[in-house]
């Protein structure tokens, strides 16, 4: 029915069918796949991802804002991003599994640790690249340190902070795929239990994970544009080349 060379299309067809229709498991006896089950996996996936991103943002952004404001932390900013890149997500998760244990808390802790480095680096760099003349002018007008952070540095650093959020969000959603190794049933569940779900289930879940990650990436790109102050957008073409050095771009990829 399908030409041999195009047989792979059949795999994808079956995988998409798996997403929408229940079927009997490979080992028999249990119904797997279909919208209700995959919606449950997706909900768990989004829950652990969002929780981790929120916790990481609360921990990392204020700290990096303050370090950037003081101008102390070049070392911390580069060191966290280097270490963050060098530790494989699978190794970190396995480390937590073997030393701390299974479950939601541990998975979220791993995801928080993965989300923190891009947030610290991007927030710090975002604050540091605010024009010093602008900060001096604000200080000359009588703004206090706190006001400078809140009214000048934070708004001007927002595009960079959201670039960090985008990197972290994509990494976290991607890494949440291996959470079933720690018994948290995210969309990775069909991927790591082929004995039940078979290759079709693995492929179907992979399609969903890829689509969701691309949506998250797109959403955060839109958010980033939305939070960029009008003035910065206007000034961008002249400054972009010089000022936006590597750390503000989506550099690390974790999973």
């Amino acid at each position, binding site marked *: 029915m399908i030409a041999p060379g195009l*047989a*792979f299309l059949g*795999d*994808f067809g079956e995988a998409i069918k798996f997403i929408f229709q229940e079927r009997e498991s490979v080992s028999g006896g249990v119904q797997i796949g279909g919208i209700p089950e995959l919606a449950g996996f997706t909900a768990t996936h989004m829950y652990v991802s969002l929780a981790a991103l929120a916790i990481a943002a609360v921990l990392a952004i204020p700290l990096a804002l303050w370090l950037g404001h003081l101008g102390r932390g070049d070392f911390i900013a580069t060191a966290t991003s*280097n270490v963050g*890149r*060098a*530790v*494989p*997500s*699978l*190794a*970190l998760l*396995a*480390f937590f*599994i*073997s*030393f701390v244990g299974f479950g939601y808390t541990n998975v979220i802790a791993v995801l928080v640790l993965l989300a923190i480095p891009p947030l610290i680096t991007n927030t710090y760099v975002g604050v540091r690249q605010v024009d010093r003349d602008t900060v001096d002018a604000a200080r000359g007008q009588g703004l206090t340190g706190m006001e400078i952070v809140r009214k000048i540095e934070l708004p001007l650093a927002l595009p960079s902070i959201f670039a960090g959020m985008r990197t972290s969000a*994509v990494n976290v*959603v*991607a*890494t949440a*795929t*291996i959470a079933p*190794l720690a018994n948290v049933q995210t969309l*990775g569940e069909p*991927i*790591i239990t*082929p004995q039940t779900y*078979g*290759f079709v289930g*693995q*492929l179907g*879940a*992979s*399609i969903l*994970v*890829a689509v969701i*990650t*691309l949506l998250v*990436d797109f959403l955060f790109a839109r958010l980033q544009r939305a939070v960029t102050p009008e003035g910065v957008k206007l000034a961008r073409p002249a400054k972009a*080349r010089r000022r936006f050095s*590597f750390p503000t*771009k*989506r*550099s*690390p*990829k*974790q*999973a």
Partner: protein
Amino acid sequence: MIGLPIAQLQIDKPGGADDCVSSNGFCPEWIAENIDRYWTPLLEHVYLTVAPVAIGFAISLALAIMAHRRRWLTGPVIAISGIFFAIPSVAAFFLLQPLTGLGYTTAMVALVSYTLLIIFRNITDGLRNVPAETRDAALGQGLTERQVLYRVEFPMAVPEIMAGLRIATSTTVGLAALAVFAGAGGLGAEILVDKRFKSNVVVAGGLAVLLAAAFDLMILGAQRAMTPWRRSRA
């Protein structure tokens, strides 16, 4: 078709390490006696890092040279490689399997596609950040556009190109740990052999981290050697 190499670890129980292993401790003795089992995965991991970065670098370099003359190419290349970059590696390893099967090819295609964005952007940025006066001086001395590119712009872009290589390499070491899902082995496979056993996780994970650090130092060393004129400044 499938069949992940997730089997239970056959734990050898040599004399003294016995208690430690059965109570799942961190066991230096067990590690010393079993370190041999990690060499093959480590070599696989080296291969899974070096080959994709080398291939990715060659492709990115070609694209960057094309985009240097035809600026409009830069946007589309970054947009397309950006989409590749956002696809989670675990998903990519399965999405490719109907086409390339289980094994190295699948891992390689995915890992190469992730290096493109990083390396391409660093090469184009590096070339673009060469001061206009420097280019003008070179052209004024009678160099052709091609000579300016190879004798002036590329040497001056070396630090940024190498920075891109460093990021691509350490990123690939991390992603190669997931290549086990493509059936390509590596240290990730060794982690999954027994993810609960502390000694196993520490050795396999630790080797991956050390590998990333070693590559990083090697590229940094190469960069120093290639840009002797910068040493006096530093």
